[in-house]
């Protein structure tokens, strides 16, 4: 198991979880979703290859009313 910060909260995950798995467990459609890892954008095309590691700070962001 690893422990990460996901949207500011501590979350425990199985080893070798990738970002695509992390996102698809939490959102229905990936359009309008963005992911930052440790203050850097991880483009959608790279999610499947991006293995989450212990201590990562990950933000999953979606469209919200604003502006």
């Amino acid at each position, binding site marked *: 198991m690893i422990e990460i910060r996901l949207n500011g909260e501590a979350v425990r995950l199985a080893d070798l979880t990738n970002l695509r798995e992390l996102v698809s467990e939490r959102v229905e459609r990936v359009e*309008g979703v963005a992911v930052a890892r440790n203050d850097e*954008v991880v483009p959608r095309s790279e999610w499947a290859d991006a293995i989450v590691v212990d201590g990562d700070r990950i933000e999953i*962001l979606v469209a*919200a009313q604003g502006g």
Partner: protein
Amino acid sequence: MPLTIADRQFGSRLITGTGGAPNLEVLERALRASGTELTTVALRRLDPSATGSLLAVLDRLGITALPNTAGCHTAAEAVLTAQLASDAFATDWIKLEVIGDERTLLPDVSELLDAAARLVDEGFVVLPYTSDDPVVARRLADVGCAAVMPLGSPIGSGGGIRNPSNIRLIRETVDVPVILDAGIGTASDAALAMELGCDAVLLASAVTRAEDPERMATAMRLAVEAGWAARHAGRIPERLHAVASSPMEGRAQLG
């Protein structure tokens, strides 16, 4: 005449925001009534309890989403948010906001200019929310922003256009579209913005927080159209004294 921003044309000169609506149903009716073709959206942490999809609403109405960097206080934060928004919404357009003060939500123009230059370099179509300072507007245009969006008064204040002269000066100063952003309270404010020479108006709270958002959206659509038409209809000069509108000749001899 359509509104042209960068390489895109819009029939409507009213750009709306989506913030402040009590729910998506009310928002959808208001957006439809507004006739807008471009509306801002924010990027926020996933809320597992949220229902409905904002993007689905925009899809249904054929409205293009314009992501913003609302809530950012530094150029670095704003650039990262723009990059995230680009990936989320598959667009290189960004409404750039860099806030310098929590109470007034006035822009931090130094961070704004820095972020604007960096995002233009990265290929973004940058629409910056800025102060009503003509010099800052010129600087933003000089670094390559696709429009400048001066405030009328603070965000959500409904204070109207506090410095109409500056808005006119900005229109004179830059060659890119000028979009009055923030401060609109009611329809006459939107009409005034257009009469001052703005190419479009961006508003959110004035509609979404009105008692009847759909009706206010209609009012804003009409006001923007009216202001634009009046601006180009060649208004009469303002005079101190009256100019009679009925001829003096041919009056009856009475009394």
